[in-house]
């Protein structure tokens, strides 16, 4: 099995980003976020989808997404003991909410795709 995890933190490819891990609970039937857990990570950031203009009657919305490759676990929304909503990643002045995670832990890394939350 080829272990590609060391490429993920190679200084030629990697950069820092911050992961905000959900830390909330249901209050009066509404999911209410607490102070998220902040985790500094190192990994490779690539483009998932371009910044795309959606010209709606109410104004312009902008979508877009990035891929984050790291050797630490990343999560989408989950219920049960560690319930929470998807990790948010702060990278270059934007937050990206994780929409998918590919758990390639056996090969030394995780790949996660996040959508830009600002939407405008």
């Amino acid at each position, binding site marked *: 099995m080829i272990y590609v995890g060391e490429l993920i933190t190679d200084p030629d490819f990697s950069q820092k980003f911050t992961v905000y891990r959900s830390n909330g*609970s*249901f209050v*009066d*039937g*509404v*999911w209410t*976020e607490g102070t998220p857990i902040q985790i500094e990570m190192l990994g490779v950031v690539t483009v998932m989808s371009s910044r795309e203009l959606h010209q709606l009657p109410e104004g312009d919305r902008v979508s877009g997404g990035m891929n984050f490759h790291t050797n630490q676990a990343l999560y989408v*929304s*989950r*219920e*049960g003991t560690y*319930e*929470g*909503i*998807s990790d948010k990643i702060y990278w270059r002045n934007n937050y990206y*909410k994780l929409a998918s995670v590919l758990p390639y832990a056996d090969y030394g890394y995780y790949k996660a795709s996040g959508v830009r939350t600002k939407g405008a």
Partner: protein
Amino acid sequence: MAEDIYLTLSELQKIFYDLFVSMFNGSPTESKVRWSWPTQGAPAFGISDNIAFLKIYDDASTMTVQREDVYSQESGLPNMSTGYTRTLRLDCIFYGPSSWENATIIRNKMFWQEHHDTLAQSSIYLVPRFDPPKRVPELWQGQWYDRSDLSMTFNELVVLNREVPYIEKVPVGIYNNDGLQIEFDIE
């Protein structure tokens, strides 16, 4: 000025959340009752969890058409009070192995006097004619999640007040050929 009678969305959510929790005999900290459309998303639930999701919004009805304006004057301030009935639709989606039973329980308990009285404190009244629960299991990732839907409507009294424009005083001047003779205000 008289106080408005109007419930905001968060006030309505709190009233119906507390009502449902009490009908399920649970404590308010339990998360068996949830509101749909969470802004940031929310963790979902397991196939064996019995959970009710609520949605509330305005519904069109003949009751909402009539509006009544009443003028009054309290403490010197003229007031226009507009009263009307707002019809609210509450959609309940029950998930879990007991979803159908839970929907039936809620439908029956809605008619209990104590729940009528709880809602009446907030000027909300059940329209006592609504369909029984509909069982509509959902296929998700290779498994059928049991689901039952129940919808009901409520009439809520709304009273909105506003201070209407008025004349505070009228200055009066009486003139003759020599000019202003008398000046006074009529209040």
